[in-house]
């Protein structure tokens, strides 16, 4: 389940956020603190998560303390589904 979620998230980020469809984002790569995803794209990502997975991540949770890797984000989504 987590792997599938990670793949969906990685594909969305690569295609729609950083616009490099061939870019491989590994599950443990830091996506927020590294600057790969900026604050605007982070809100966009949370809207995508809400629409695609039906999971709400609150505005105050959008920070590296809550999740900084795809593995952590997928874990959070699974936990709330």
């Amino acid at each position: 389940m987590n792997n599938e979620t990670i793949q969906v998230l990685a594909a969305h980020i690569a295609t729609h956020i950083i616009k490099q469809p061939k870019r491989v984002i590994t599950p443990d790569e830091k996506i927020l603190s590294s600057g790969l995803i900026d604050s605007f794209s982070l809100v966009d990502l949370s809207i995508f998560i809400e629409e695609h997975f039906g999971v709400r991540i609150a505005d105050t949770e959008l920070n590296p303390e809550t999740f900084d890797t795809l593995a952590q984000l997928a874990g959070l989504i699974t936990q709330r589904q």
Partner: protein
Amino acid sequence: MSLSHLLVFVILSLVLGRIASARWRGRFLLAASGLAMYWLQPAIPIRHLDFWLPTATLALSVLVWASTAPGVEVDEDKRCLQQRQNRITALTLGGLVLVIALLRYTQPLCCLTPTIPPAVHQVLLALALAAGIGWAARRISGRRPWLHALTLFLLAAFVVLKSEFLAQAASSGLRLLNGQPTATASALDLRWLGFSYVAFRLIHSLRDRLDGRLPELSLEEFIIYILFFPAFTAGPIDRVQRFIQDLRRPFRLGLEDALAAGRRLLIGVFNKFVLADFLAIIALNAVNATQAHATGWLWILLYAYAFRIYFDFAGYTDIAIGLGGLLGIRLPENFDHPYQKPNPTLFWNSWHMTLAQWLRGYYFNPLTRSLRMIKQGQSSLLPLPLIIFIGQVTTMLFIGLWHGLTWNFAIWGLWHGLGLFIHNRYADWSRPRLAWLDERPGLKRLSELGSVLLNFHFVTLGWVWFALPTPALAWQTLLKLFGG
């Protein structure tokens, strides 16, 4: 915070961290934070105001707790015990204020406050009033209009304190009430120590209560969170959900924790009291900016300012984290090598991180989300660049004006807001086009080095607006820096 304050705080923290049992830890932290707040408050020429302002901080904190604490939904036995504990805390706080006021009669030991506290009957009256308001607030706890009203009140107080005109008008009013001459009223009369940070923590609590995300807290826990003395004057702004985990965790200071905290304290003392205070001698200011004519010298003054402001603020954070470590509270980091970052986005992920995160959580993210949700069919009605522009520029404008309602702070905020926007658009354009750099690590490192230097100078030139009092002087200085 002076070195003598710090020495007392270190000894106090060592003693509290080492000997306070789990039962008494909260009580000690409460008393220490309350006393420290009065002790740190600078002297104010308006009679007794340096006693009333810390008292108002305490009263506001109790009021917000009373307005956000859950009602009767928890089970009866637990509620009775909690109510008893909260009553003891309220009495302890009242007693603390009274003892501080009574010190006026203990000459020559008087006083903990910088000037003599008011007469005891005035303090008793104020305590009775605060207790009455607190009791009434408990009755309407959790009601949305009331929580919104409190948030607005805190924001309004913020505006008054940060605006020179309004602060001076408020000072005149207070002087008039006190029968003091109004001719010498100044905005500096309202130096309400720690209010900025206290207000952020209180608004965070109110907003999280509105969203149902505020944990259940005793009065003691809440007051310790708001007034925690290591972070009272200069942050960092911790989140209550995180802070409370550490506070509830049993803690006894061991050698390993003491050494880690001591190391952090030493770094902080060196950064603040050696590096920052030395650099302050030559850092850019309104006087030397006018006097300096050689471009090279002006750049030295500006570099000195850039490093002084960093070492000063980061030093305070190190000290706060070190003191917190002695007490078993792991305060969040506020700086992460900001001058080594290659772009404005990463700079703001590593400079005053807790303030930036606070504003993202409570302003930028909700605003961006609501603008994104204005849709026509399936797509966003507003163009993405416009949403990014509005979000980034207004957020940075707020951060600028948080330092004071002046043109220069506004321009400094706009400088960074535009920098973030331009970088965002550039990154969007360049990322797919420069992806080949990933296969040329040497060239990538060189490009990153160039970006770090460019970004450092972007931030450093922005400090000209921050350091100088008027737009005219700042503009003149910027021109001189480039040989004009």
